[in-house]
C-alpha cells in the first residue's frame, strides 16, 4: 500500500487546457472515486497517473517514489479498463499471466499467483477459455484478476461498471467492495455514476472542467456541497436551487424569501453570507407535500414519478420556481393539484453569487 501525491499537474491537448496546477493527495490504502460529467478530465487524470498520458508539468509520487518519469509498466500500477482490454487471442490464464511473464517471473510463481487470483475471483473454471466466450461480468473479473495478480501498489479502475447491465452492476459493485477488503491496496476509480462513487469510495473527488470542485467523504459531498456544481451533480434527482432574497434582521441564522414571497428560516449562519444573489438549495427529501397552510409556500403539481417506495413530485411555486419534492410510498398528489410544501429548513443550503456553498451549522460531515 502506498500513498499517491499529485503536485501541480498541468495538461494541455493543443489549445485546450485540461488541468492547470492540479494537486491531490490520496492516503495509503484509501479508495478514492473521481466523479464528474463526461469531459471533466477525470479519465485523463487517471491515464496520467497510469503513464498512458504524459503531464506537461507537475510531479506524481507513489509512496516515496517519483513515478511520472517511469514507463507505465514500471510504476507499480495496475488498471482495469472500461472495455476490459483483454487480449482476445489469449486464454484467461494467459491474459492474467501476461504481465508476470513480461516481468520475468519464474514459471512456478506465475502459476501460483494466477491460481491464487483465480481462487479469489472464483474464475478457476474460466482459465482455459478465451475472453470472447465469457459474459460481461466474467470478463470484468478476468480484467480485475489481471490487475491483482501483479500485486500493484495502486489500482486504477476506469468506469469499471459502465458496461454492465443494471442487475450485474449492483452485484459487481458489491464484489468490488468485497475485493477491496481482501486486496489491501490504494485504489482510484473513475466514474460518472454517483451511486458507484458514494457506495464504494472512502473519499470522492468531484471534478468539472479540469478542476477539482470538492474532495470529501461521500456524506460530506452530499451534505455539504462546496458549490452549486457539486450540489447539482451529486444527488438524484438533483437538488433544487431556487433564487432567494435574504430577509434583513440580526438573528444568528439566515431567513430567506422565495420568489412567491414565502419565507424559509434556515440553520445557515448569517455571518458570512453575501446580501444578494443567493440560491436556496433543497434536496427532494427535504421537501414534503401536505395541504396548503398559511405562511408556507404553496405550489402546483406539474409532474409525478412513482418509484414504488417513494414518489417524486415536481411542483412549481407561484413565481414559476421549479421545486422537486419527495413523498413516501404512493403519493396521493395529482397533476394540477395545489399543494403545500413542508420544508425541512434545517437541512437547507445557501449558495452565494460565486456559487460557494453555505451550510447549516453542525450538520454531518
Amino acid at each position, binding site marked *: 500500500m502506498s500513498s499517491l501525491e499529485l503536485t501541480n499537474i498541468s495538461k494541455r491537448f493543443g489549445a485546450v487546457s485540461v488541468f492547470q496546477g492540479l494537486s491531490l493527495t490520496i492516503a495509503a490504502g484509501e479508495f478514492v472515486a473521481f466523479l464528474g460529467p463526461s469531459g471533466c478530465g477525470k479519465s485523463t487524470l487517471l491515464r496520467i497517473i*497510469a*503513464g*498512458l498520458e504524459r503531464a506537461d508539468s507537475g510531479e506524481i509520487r507513489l509512496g516515496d517514489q517519483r513515478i511520472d518519469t517511469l*514507463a*507505465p*509498466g*514500471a510504476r507499480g*500500477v*495496475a*488498471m482495469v*479498463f472500461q*472495455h476490459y*482490454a*483483454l*487480449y*482476445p*487471442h489469449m486464454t484467461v490464464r494467459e491474459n492474467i499471466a*501476461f*504481465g508476470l511473464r*513480461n*516481468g520475468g517471473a519464474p514459471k512456478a510463481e506465475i502459476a501460483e499467483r494466477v491460481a491464487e487470483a483465480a481462487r479469489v475471483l472464483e474464475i478457476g473454471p474460466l482459465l482455459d477459455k478465451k475472453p470472447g466466450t465469457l459474459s460481461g461480468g466474467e470478463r470484468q473479473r478476468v480484467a480485475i484478476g*489481471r490487475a491483482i495478480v*501483479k500485486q500493484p501498489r495502486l489500482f486504477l479502475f476506469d468506469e469499471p461498471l459502465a458496461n454492465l447491465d443494471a442487475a450485474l452492476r449492483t452485484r459487481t459493485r458489491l464484489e468490488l467492495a468485497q475485493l477491496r477488503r481482501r486486496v489491501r491496496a490504494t485504489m482510484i476509480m473513475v466514474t460518472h455514476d454517483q451511486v458507484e462513487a458514494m457506495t464504494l469510495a472512502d473519499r470522492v473527488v468531484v471534478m468539472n472542467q479540469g478542476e477539482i470542485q470538492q474532495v470529501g467523504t461521500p456524506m460530506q459531498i452530499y451534505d455539504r456541497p462546496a458549490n452549486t456544481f457539486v450540489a447539482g451533480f451529486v444527488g438524484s434527482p438533483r437538488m433544487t436551487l431556487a433564487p432567494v432574497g435574504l430577509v434583513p434582521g440580526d438573528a444568528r441564522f439566515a431567513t430567506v424569501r422565495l420568489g412567491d414571497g414565502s419565507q424559509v428560516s434556515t440553520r445557515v449562519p448569517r455571518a458570512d453570507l453575501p446580501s444578494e444573489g443567493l440560491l436556496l438549495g433543497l434536496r427532494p427529501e427535504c421537501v414534503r407535500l401536505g395541504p396548503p397552510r398559511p405562511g408556507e409556500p404553496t405550489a402546483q403539481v406539474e409532474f409525478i414519478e412513482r418509484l414504488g417506495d417513494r414518489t417524486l413530485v415536481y411542483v412549481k411555486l407561484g413565481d414559476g420556481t421549479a421545486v422537486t419534492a419527495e413523498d413516501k410510498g404512493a403519493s396521493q398528489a395529482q397533476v394540477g393539484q395545489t399543494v403545500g410544501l413542508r420544508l425541512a429548513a434545517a437541512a437547507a443550503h445557501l449558495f452565494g453569487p460565486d456559487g460557494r456553498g453555505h451550510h447549516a451549522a453542525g450538520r454531518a460531515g
Partner: protein
Amino acid sequence: MTAAGVKGPSLAGFTPAGLAGVALAAAVMITPLLWTVGLSLKPNFELMRDTSSVFGPPYTLENYRAILANSNVFRWVFNSTVVSLSTTFGVLALSSLAGYAFARLEFRGRRALFVAVLLGLAIPEQAVIIARHQMFSALHLHNTYPGLILPGLSAPFGVFLMTQYFRGIPVELDEAALLDGASHFTIFWKVLLPLTLPAQATLGIFTFLASWNDYWWPLISATRSSMFTLTVGVASSQMNFAQTSGLGYLMAQAVFASVPILIVYALFQQHIVRAVAGAATR
C-alpha cells in the same frame, strides 16, 4: 457482414431466374477451363486436324509426359516457389511492421510518409520498369533470386491494408500491455500481430497468387533458363507454331502451371473466400 460470418455456397434465396443466371455465368466461366483440360489430354496430331475431336477418345497423358521430360520444368517450379514464398513472407513482414508503425507509433513525418506510400499505388509498374532494369543491371541482380524477389516487396497496398487493420484494433490493448510491462516489440509481436491474422491471410494469398502468376518482370530480369520462373519457362518452351502444331502440349503446360495455384486454393479456400468477401463488403 463480417469475414467470420461468410458461409459456404447456398442456393437459398435464389429465384429460378437468378439461379439460371448464376448457372449460366458458372458455365461461361468453367467452359474455357474444361476446354483447356480437354485439349491437354488429346494427341497433338489429332488436334491439328480438328479441335472438335476433344469431345471423343482417344485421350492421352502424352503431353504431360513431354512436359515432365523437360529437365528444366522442375527447376522452374522450384524458382517460382522460392520467389513466390519469399515475396509473400517479405511483403507480410514489411507490411505488418510498416502498418504497425503508421497506425501506432508517433514520429515526425508520419503522415507525409504514409501519403508517399499511398502514392505508390498510383504508379504503374510500366512507368518504372526501365529505371528498375538499369538499377538491377548496375547492381548485377539480374538472373538472381533477389533480382526476382525484391521488386515484389514494394507493396504499398499491403502497407495500406495492414495500417488500416492495425488502426481497427482498440488502442486499449496496447495500453493494457504497456501497463503489463510489455515493450513496443512485445506489443507488436504478442498482442497485435496475432489479431491481424485475417488480414495477413488475405494479403498473403493475394501476394502469392500475384507473384506466382507474374510474367513480365521475370521475363525481363531472368534471361538464363535456369532462373526462369514457371510462367516464363513454360512460355519459352513454346514453338512459333505451337497453337497449330502443339496445341495439346500448350494446353497441358497451362494446366501444369495452374496446379500449384489449385493446391494453394484447396489449402486456403476458406481464407480466400473470406478475403474476397471481405474486400467486397468492407
